């Protein structure tokens, strides 16, 4: 168990907002529509709301676990399950986050390959991207918070301005009839939507880096609310702009929306937007990778600067091995399922286990 980080390494509680948004509001915004519309059609926006609410509940549990443990998740695991089983749990969580990082890196490279440079070699882009990630992570957690904060400022205004362009072409009638789908269908869609909102589990690792960490909970909820509302806005715009069949056909509907933006001095806005989205990708990859290396340091006293290089190399290799669209999709659906278990099974399990164990201790 490492000593808690010193005060000068910590960040103010309100930065949790940007960290949560950074983790949740990433590449998902481009492509999440289709999978949800597949199940519930025009009611997709309801699924977004339900998913958002459920994530709030999960986040609340996360904070309860951390506030009780008053340390990061590896220590809490050890307390609850002992070094062996606890270590196994921690390792699983770390692997999950690092796989998320791989998935984000590969998806972004794929986006660039499809939209900007069809000839681009995966390894080439992965090398550049991960070198950039290395530069950030080597600076420590505060630097990562910095990029999360700045990328929020860079990317979100552009994003919402771009959503204003299809206003003229939108059809409110696309949304009706409301509640046209069964509860089972809605829940299936909610399940898919949750994947887009995953990533906030990194808080298990950076909790100790927050000043007055329990007080940061409201910022965490604000962050989740912001992401949920953003997804909701995108979903409603997409539903009103596209017909259902169009949405089912297009892989990246948000980019298609960007395409209709037409300035006198600029056409094909999505080239600019995609390039700028690098920041968004950078901060989620940084966050996941940092959390992974931090966890490894807690578990095995590995120096972060060494494990970081190993993990970045592994990420690059994994990204290169994912060659086709199908493979990338496959990874996505695996992560989709995994995130579901992490959020709706694993976190509540820990929550209740900790609660019961605490009560037992008190009574005995």
């Amino acid at each position: 168990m490492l000593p808690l980080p010193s005060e000068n390494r910590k960040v103010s509680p309100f930065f949790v907002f940007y960290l949560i948004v950074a983790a949740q509001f990433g590449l998902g915004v481009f492509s999440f529509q289709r999978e949800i519309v597949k199940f519930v059609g025009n009611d997709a926006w309801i699924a977004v709301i339900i998913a958002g609410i459920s994530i709030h509940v999960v986040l609340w549990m996360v904070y309860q676990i951390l506030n009780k443990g008053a340390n990061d998740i590896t220590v809490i695991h050890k307390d609850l399950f002992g070094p062996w089983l606890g270590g196994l749990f921690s390792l699983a969580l770390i692997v999950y986050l690092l796989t998320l990082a791989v998935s984000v890196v590969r998806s972004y490279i794929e986006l660039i390959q499809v939209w900007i440079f069809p000839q681009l070699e995966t390894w080439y882009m992965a090398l550049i991207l991960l070198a950039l990630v290395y530069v950030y992570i080597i600076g420590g957690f505060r630097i990562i918070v910095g990029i999360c904060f700045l990328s929020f400022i860079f990317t979100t205004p552009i994003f919402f301005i771009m959503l204003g362009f299809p206003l003229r072409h939108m059809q409110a009638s696309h949304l009706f009839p409301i509640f046209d789908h069964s509860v089972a269908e809605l829940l299936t869609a909610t399940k898919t939507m949750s994947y887009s909102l995953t990533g906030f589990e990194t808080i298990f690792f950076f909790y100790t880096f927050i000043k007055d960490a329990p007080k940061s909970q409201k910022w965490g909820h604000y962050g989740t609310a912001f992401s949920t509302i953003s997804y909701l806005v995108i979903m409603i715009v997409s539903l009103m702009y596209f017909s259902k069949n169009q949405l089912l056909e297009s892989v990246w509907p948000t980019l298609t929306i960007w395409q209709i933006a037409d300035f006198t001095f600029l056409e094909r806005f999505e080239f600019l937007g995609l390039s700028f989205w690098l920041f968004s990708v950078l901060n989620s990859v940084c966050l996941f990778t940092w959390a992974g290396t931090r966890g490894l340091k807690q578990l095995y006293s590995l120096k972060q600067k060494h494990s970081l290089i190993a993990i970045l190399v592994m990420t690059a290799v994994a990204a290169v091995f994912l060659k086709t669209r199908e493979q990338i999709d496959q990874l996505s659906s695996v992560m989709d399922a995994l995130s579901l278990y992490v959020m709706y099974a694993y976190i509540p399990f820990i929550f209740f286990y900790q609660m019961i164990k605490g009560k037992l201790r008190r009574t005995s």
Partner: protein
Amino acid sequence: MLKTDSAFHNSELAKLLEACEESADFLSFGLQDSPFFIAYFKTLVKSEIIHHEVLACFQAKKPSTLEEIKAILPIEEVSITDDMTDIQNKLMTGNLIIFKKEGNWNCLVVPVPSVEKRQVATPETEYTVAGPKEAFVESLDTNLNLVRKRLPIPELLVKELMVGKLSKTRIAVVYVKGIADPENVNTVIQRINGIEYDEIADTSFLSQMIADNKNSPFPQLIDTERPDRLAAVLAEGKIGIFSEGSPTAISGPVSLITYFAAFEDYLSIWNVASAFRLLRLFAVLFSILATSSYVAILTYHYEMIPRDVLSLLITSRGTIPFPPFLEAILLELAIELLREAGARLPTKIGQTIGIVGGIVLGTAAVQAGLTSNVLLIVVATGALASFTTPIYQVSSVIRLIRFPFILFAQLLGLVGVAVCFALLISHLLKLTSLGRPFLEPVFPLRVEDFKDSIIRMPFNKQALRPLQIRAQNRQRFQQEALPKKDWDIDD
């Protein structure tokens, strides 16, 4: 006029006074109610001091001997002497003499010099945007003051020498004892003492006279007008030389690379400074080689040029009636003419000449079909590049050595350029500055000295003085301990 005793009339003092009286600005008169006489050059003394201090003390105290006057005069460094050469020298450097016409003709020598000098102003040729804005002036004492206040240590020694039969120029050799190599100091002092010349007007005279190779176009001692630069150089263990009446100091030993180091390099952060220093070095190489390569390639090796560029050159050169060599020489001469005319004229007219010559002549020459505009660009860029060197004298050298390169290019093409370059290198290899190799650290190869040559490393890497100077004490400061290796992220 002097009332003369016969005895006094025959004395040496009287002969001296007589000789001096041939000049209109020499004054010599007796005092009222007093046996004393006063003599001085009125153009060399401050008359207020004579009126307020010297004459006033005669009126108030009525002294009767020279010793009494010496005791009551409120002026230091007053002496009594009968050494005629001394008296003559003192008279010529702004002293007045007081004497009696009876007795032993001793003189009281009172220093009342009036020194005309310029105010300390901003440097003109080595101007930097950041950093100190003081420059040396024509007064040796002011210059030494400017250096001393930057190095307020007793180890900063000033050795004063006198050179020039007529000019009697005061030369100051400045160095930091314990750092500067005594061998270098001796070399400098010996060479200055060996100078046989009547009138020394500037340190650049000295620089030429004590140079190791007097026929090389490269100056072997660097001249600067910046006291901060000189102080920095002294702290490195180099030796500075001043002369009375010169607003520049020279210093050595130097290496070729020093000429491309601007003082601004030390004022900006090391990586920025290094980038600009590299740019300057590149500019020099470009300046030397651009025109000659143009001549060589267009005369002999047009196969080298890619087809697209070739067509551009053909359209540009198609109507030019001269071979590239003549064309290049013409343009180079024109640019040199412009520069020379600009340098000789007052600033305002110089600017006009620049515009008329540069723009009007350049355009007209191209339109008239006398030169190609490609060559115009090459030559103008080359001239511009030569001006990036911070030391003015070197920029003229660089422009000058372009001409042999062009000649060789015409004779043997690119092989000729290589031959000329080899000649240049052989000359630089032989060159020394105060006996130290001029091409250091490239040859002899001293990797350590690269820390302040082609690039400038950060200050914390400059703990040792350069090997080339052979400083007695190489340690500039205690180097900080290296950072610990076992740090980690967020520790």
